């Protein structure tokens, strides 16, 4: 199913996140990831939701989100056209023998080494979904111990504002 990135401006009221999460749960919509953060306006927060579903479902999701009174705006962001990134930390098994190989691969992906241990490496990588997936595939043979993904977040290009 196709992934869709939705960017929302919401009023910073208590319970707004719960209303949004509740809506997805109640109506059986998927949440692949959800991020929340403050904005330039202290009364407003910005939420990015990655969801999957067909066109009909997506249309309903947007309409139902708009129906929530605390939701100010809903915009679908095309990750290929707009700025859209995800922050990932990934811990990979490493030995004295393969450490430099792993690091050289990571450079191709512009991943940063943020921790070096005797038996492991922790990388920080920022990118769109496909880049992160590709890096994961390259790391898999060495052994991925654990990872954490922030979920995608994004902004429109140019002078357009949400």
């Amino acid at each position, binding site marked *: 199913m196709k992934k869709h990135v939705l960017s929302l401006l919401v009023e910073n009221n208590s319970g707004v996140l719960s209303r949004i999460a509740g809506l997805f749960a109640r109506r059986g919509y998927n949440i692949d990831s959800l991020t929340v953060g403050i904005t330039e306006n202290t009364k407003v927060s910005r939420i990015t939701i990655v969801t999957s579903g067909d066109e009909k479902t997506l249309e309903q999701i947007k309409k139902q989100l708009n129906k929530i*009174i605390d939701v100010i705006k809903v915009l679908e962001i095309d990750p290929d056209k707009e700025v859209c990134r995800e922050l990932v930390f990934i811990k990979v098994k490493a030995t004295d023998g393969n450490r430099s190989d792993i690091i050289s691969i990571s450079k191709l992906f512009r991943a940063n080494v943020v921790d070096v241990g005797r038996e492991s490496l922790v990388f920080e990588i920022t990118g769109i979904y496909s880049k992160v997936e590709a890096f994961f595939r390259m790391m898999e043979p060495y052994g991925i111990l654990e990872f954490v993904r922030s979920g995608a977040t994004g902004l429109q290009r140019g002078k357009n504002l949400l």
Partner: protein
Amino acid sequence: MLASKLILKCLELEGVDTIFGYPGGALLPLYNALIDSDITHVLVRNEQAAPHCASGYAREKGTVGVCMATSGPGATNLITGIATAYMDSIPIVAITGQVNRALIGTDAFQEADITGATQPFTKRSYLVTNADDLPRIFKEAFHIARTGRPGPVLIDIPKDVQEENIKIYDFDKPVNIVGYKPHYEGHTGQIKKAIRVIKSAKRPVIYAGGGIVLSKAEEELITFAEKNKIPVITTLMGVGCFPQTHPMYCGVIGSHGYQYTSEIMEKADLCFCVGARMSDRGTTPSKELIDDMILVHIDIDPAEIGKNVYQTNIPIVGDAKIVLGQLLEKDIGLQTEQWHEEIREIKERIPVDYSENIPYVGVNPKLVFKTLSDLTREETTLVADVGLNQFWASLYFKIYGGRKFFTSGGLGTMGYSVPAAIGAYLAKENADRQIVAVCGDGSFQMFIGELAVIGEQKMNIKIIMIRNRKLGMVRQLQKNVYGKNGYFGTDLSFDIHFDKIAEAYDLEYYCIDSDDAIEEQLTKVLQSDQSCLVECVVDEDFLYI
């Protein structure tokens, strides 16, 4: 000003004159303030009745109904009624007491997260943590409840907030909610497109729902139908939005509907759906049907367009009254004589039949409703409960002119009728207006305690109870699905003396046990100036619609 007094001031400014409530520890300050207030407080006997009362009140008066309950169990008892109002888009404001702010989150005595619990079926819910916000919150709550697609709003107020002293307050500050701006006017481009498709229709129908009643668009609908000669079908929630005595009236659609209506619907080539959501219970037209049919869908809630029926050809977001007004400005000029001829033929072929050929004991409920319809005056509000009584009421009691019909259509909440009738009774503006509640012996027993409100206030409400000693509609489903050996848990044959219940609550009691007695008994009931409980003895196997 004391916050509790300020809350009542806010209510008065919103035009509230009646509150249906039940007190408790967390509402003590507010109840104390009520002593000196002009607002009438009606003490329900179970909080569960309060939102239904508020709903009946709101529907009768065309305004916002208000109910109130204390924290914890009081608040949770409101939930079903709030959900009922949400499904039927009825504007109510529910006020709940909450434990002191410092105790929130500690599982204190009578603490319940009511804003969280009611989240899925309120338009908005507020937990007031700062007393200064009260004027704004109340103004917003009433604004949200009554505008756009109406619905319930909940305000949860901790006890210590009610006790605060507020020095600076402003009641006149206009409401400004950035994320809430309902569209009332239809998009002119869409209106033009709609007119184009209506013009080319040969067999159009208007599919009218509760939105017509909510936006008070009955006159516009009649004019639109008459001017363009388009027949009108209504949903259950739309019953009464178009006079059922009108020659262009084509019945109620869906599981509560007439067979002839379904046939007309199936033959239509254009469905002009206004203020309805095409629910599964009304009709979700089959894919084959919708493929050949043009669907024009007018609704104030954009999310309803394309939700139950995805293939909407012309969506118009807007208020029914305003959009119909916009459409009336244009000349459409339809030739539908042949279609009306076809409809006449269908109506004659599948007539509405009150008789019953299979032998039965007691009365024919269809005749009860037909006779009730013939005998009651035009100024009548009929509140139907849920179950077989709702089917019979919606099909055989004619709504036209000044008559109104209320029921719990969306959630199907049993026990709605008596509390909603109480609300309607207190809201009616014409003293002569007759309020009739119809229910089964199952739904009647859900709110027996509320008879105390009727008795105490000396209301003149007629309660028509279909007594078949069974949960008739569930039993019918069991029969349809599992056959006659499938009856289980639907037996109410324990011999209750309803005459004694009527006596206990100071209601007149009547029993109708044969078809011959219907007219005579109902005449007496309707002539009485007292509240009456009418027990209609109906055969347990009289399941036929």
